[in-house]
């Protein structure tokens, strides 16, 4: 029993979960505020805490930024009436939000969010087949939505669930295929290894330029974000698969969606944009023991890059109209997958030629 490992693992898990949950909450706020600004309005700007709100200058400023809004949302989720309609299949109804939420958190288990902090590597599970694990878990994410649609026993959730499951499994394939060139080039399935490769040779996006767009589009589709948000399109399907859910269960779905987005951003950062490294100022190497501040800086860099991608997710939402369902499936099967396959073949040929 390696107690050391166990204790540190538990600590890392707790830390990651904590940070992730906070980021989810503030991702909601960021989405609301950024969406508002894009739409010529202001977004949440009223929630104010009793004492902190009265600190001059800073208090009103924070209120205007809506910093405390996630707090209010959380309180609302807890206090709102959480009822189960009579026509649902209760077990699955209760199970579905959990299944939707958990895979997102599981995915971040393999992602290196920093270099090292002291003696500990900043990754919860340094798997040798990290990416396989990731794709396995992502496939599980389909179940949550499908189960929600099925259990709700109602027209619109059913349609939303069906559409979502078809969409997600279609784009899973494209996602998986698009990432293979990365590993062909790096030669290592370990995510930490990918980052080391990028630290030495430059960001992967320069070497696999076609992979990144395909992966990006597939990530949008996997997280049910516009322009692929048919399963929950409010204007077409009432609420899609989460119509019948209220209060805490709906909050779980919501959190699951944003957690998925964060996980997807983390994947993109790790695979294509160098993870926790920056190509200058010696930030591309793991710090020596004692340079704990560099470790923290690496974590900060990672989070910053992740936030950029989050911003992209939010930004794209208001840019593009929604794909129609047949257009969506057409894109996934007839364009993304052939493109990804072609990408693999070309990359393979190039790698072979370069190695010989």
């Amino acid at each position, binding site marked *: 029993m390696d107690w050391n490992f166990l204790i540190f693992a538990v600590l890392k898990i707790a830390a990651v979960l904590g940070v992730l949950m906070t980021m989810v909450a503030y991702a909601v706020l960021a989405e609301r505020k*950024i969406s*508002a*600004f*894009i*739409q*010529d*309005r*202001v977004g949440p700007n009223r929630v104010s805490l009793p004492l902190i709100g009265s600190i001059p200058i800073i208090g009103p400023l924070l209120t205007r930024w809506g910093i405390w809004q996630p707090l209010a949302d959380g309180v609302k989720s807890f206090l709102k009436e959480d009822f189960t309609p009579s026509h649902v299949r209760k077990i699955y109804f209760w199970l579905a939000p959990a299944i939707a939420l958990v895979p997102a958190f599981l995915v971040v288990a393999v992602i290196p969010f920093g270099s090292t902090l002291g003696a500990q590597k900043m990754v919860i599970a340094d798997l040798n087949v990290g990416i396989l694990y990731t794709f396995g878990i992502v496939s599980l994410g389909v179940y949550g939505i499908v189960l929600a649609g099925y259990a709700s026993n109602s027209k619109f959730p059913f349609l939303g669930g069906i559409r979502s499951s078809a969409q997600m499994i279609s784009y899973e394939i494209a996602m998986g295929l698009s990432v293979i060139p990365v590993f062909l080039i790096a030669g290592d399935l370990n995510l930490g290894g990918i980052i080391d490769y990028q630290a030495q040779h430059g960001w992967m996006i320069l070497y696999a330029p076609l992979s990144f767009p395909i992966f990006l589009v597939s990530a949008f589709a996997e997280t049910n974000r516009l322009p692929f948000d048919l399963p929950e399109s409010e204007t077409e399907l009432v609420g899609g698969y989460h119509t019948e859910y209220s209060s805490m269960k709906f909050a779980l779905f919501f959190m699951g969606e944003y957690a998925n987005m964060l996980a997807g951003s983390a994947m993109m950062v790790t695979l294509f944009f160098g993870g926790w490294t920056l190509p200058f100022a010696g930030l591309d190497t793991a710090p020596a023991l004692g340079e704990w501040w560099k470790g923290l800086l690496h974590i900060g860099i990672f989070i910053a890059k992740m936030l950029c991608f989050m911003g992209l997710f939010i*930004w794209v939402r*208001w*840019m*593009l109209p929604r794909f129609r369902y047949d257009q969506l499936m057409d894109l996934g099967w007839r364009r993304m997958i052939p493109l990804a396959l072609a990408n693999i073949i070309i990359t393979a040929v190039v790698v072979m030629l370069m190695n010989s």
Partner: protein
Amino acid sequence: MIVKRTQLTWWERLYLPALIGGFKVTLRHFKNTITGRTRVTQQYPEEPTKVPPGYRGAPYLVRDQDGDTKCVSCQLCEFICPPKAIKIIPPGDSGLQSDRANAEKMPREFEINMLRCIFCGFCQEVCPEEAIFLKQDFSLTGLARGEMVFNKEKLLSLGGTHAGIQKWKHKLDEAEEQETFPIQT
């Protein structure tokens, strides 16, 4: 009719120009709002809403220049009100005298249920005496349903004065000028 479908160039078909255009538009809106060039949001309770003239707010009864109730209980508004929000009790045999010379009728009770009122303005349009007007109030609240049924006193107090043609007074003046019959009011 024939709809011309423009042929897209291969660059346009890649969809990248559209994407970039989208990015530019949203970024422009974002910058304008965050720097404050676009200010459309009204912070409601702090910034009161100014309603335009002719706004259809809550209906109230009005008095004329001399402070008399203008309503003569003709019950046309009660009839035309689509959700039947108005309920009028005519004077009947109560002996209630109009508080205005020469118009013999005045409602004994006049109730408008503000929860039923749809602010359509039909009552104002149909009133032959210009006695009911839709004023500027739009945020009516109460703690009980009974509170939101406004009776005659409340409606008169909220309505204020609306100077107009004092038809009944003119008739009385005209009649008193004519010497033929002694006029009793």
